């Protein structure tokens, strides 16, 4: 049974990602290095159209949780169900330095099984929306850190996934891009895309329907629900967990 069921589940929205009792321990081949227990039973349900923040202190296992949720690594125990597939924006930009922005779209679009027209449309739409269309002919290794981040985000979005899992997505964004990101996220959520944003720091908590904290390998509720707090209070993962 999920330890963090969606409190808005009564509205009948479809569950698009469900994780139950996810455990992950990193073991070393070297006998003198201790095992590192990262996740000890993290559970989560995401429903269509909701925006969830997941916070946690440095080293709490947020990226490990994200990789378990998207299927990039196998958990030691527990189950993850993602019936509609996921889009994943990893914390580090996993792009090919020698490709241009447009070539990157084509490569990842082909990987997603998209047609040429669909790839072109997605590239047009996302570069315009995130304001980096003028860099489409530029090689990835000649982009600024912020524009590389935009490209990673755009690649994770281009196939219109039902669930979008974003790991520190706005690192390096300027203020305008940060606002554009949230406008885009709001539009996607309105169209039914579930979005989970993982960060060590969550600003503007009223942008989220729920905020969860990863602590001791499990997810726990943190802060208040959307609407209960109209301020722009900043929730920071507490140093003492």
């Amino acid at each position: 049974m999920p330890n963090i069921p969606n409190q808005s589940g009564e509205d009948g929205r479809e569950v698009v990602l469900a994780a139950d009792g996810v455990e992950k321990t990193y073991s070393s081949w070297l006998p003198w290095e201790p095992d590192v227990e990262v996740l000890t039973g993290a559970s989560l349900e995401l429903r269509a159209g909701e925006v969830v923040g997941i916070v946690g202190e440095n080293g709490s296992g947020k990226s490990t949780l994200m990789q378990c949720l998207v299927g990039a690594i196998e958990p030691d125990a527990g189950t993850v169900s993602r019936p509609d597939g996921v889009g994943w924006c990893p914390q580090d930009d996993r792009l090919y330095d020698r490709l241009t922005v447009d070539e990157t779209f084509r490569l990842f679009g082909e990987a997603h099984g998209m047609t040429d027209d669909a790839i072109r449309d997605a590239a047009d739409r996302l570069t315009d929306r995130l304001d980096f269309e003028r860099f489409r002919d530029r090689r990835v290794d000649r982009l600024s850190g912020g524009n590389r981040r935009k490209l990673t985000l755009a690649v994770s979005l281009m196939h219109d996934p039902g669930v979008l899992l974003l790991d520190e997505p706005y690192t390096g964004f300027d203020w305008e891009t940060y606002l554009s990101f949230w406008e885009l996220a709001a539009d996607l959520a309105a169209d039914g895309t579930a979005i989970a944003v993982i960060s060590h720091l969550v600003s503007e908590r009223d942008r989220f329907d729920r905020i969860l904290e990863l602590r001791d390998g499990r997810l726990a509720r943190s802060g208040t629900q959307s609407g209960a707090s109209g301020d722009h209070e900043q929730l920071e993962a507490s140093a003492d967990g």
Partner: protein
Amino acid sequence: MLVALPPFVTYVYGAAMGAFPDVGFVDGSASTYGRIGGALFATAFLTGLVGLFGTVSAATADRYLAFSGFSSGVLFGTRVLVTTGVALVAAAVSLLSLLAFGTDVAAVAPAYLVLVLAGTLYGLLGVVVGALVPRDLEGSLVLVFLADADSFLSGDVLSVDTDLVTLLPLHYPHAMFESAVLDGTVGTGNVAPALAYLAVLAVAAGVAYAAATGRGWSL
């Protein structure tokens, strides 16, 4: 590097060996033996570097691309094709260098194919090294040490009295290349073990690549 390294290494290896004119157990010109070793080293090392850097620099991107939908088998096949392409070019430049420095090559086509084989072997070895030592500097140091020692020990310049040299990747290609250059033949007894070595390395590279791009492990 593809253009500059093969002629430089071929020339220097030949000149170095030429400084020892009375090597008793070498039939023929010591310089020729040196150039043969240099051409093999240049082809193997350059292709190995491509295999290494391709694995080290692109492992996380390949993993992300596999996550996005491409099969790991296709990605690995593409990497092998790229390294084979580099082996074709490096072998051509190395062979041309050998010819340009005055070595008569008795059978050009077989010599070229053997160089391509040597390059491909090291391209696969580069993938394995890149998976085990996923850092550019450390990986290239491992590779340059291996290729240097291999091209020297696998030749007949020193009569190394141990079967361990038969485990070196260039052991059989070196014998085949020497035969092709000097006699115009490729010793048939060396072809099967060389291809077997290639098959074993291909499997090892596939496993290493899958591990590097699937879970990102390293020693």
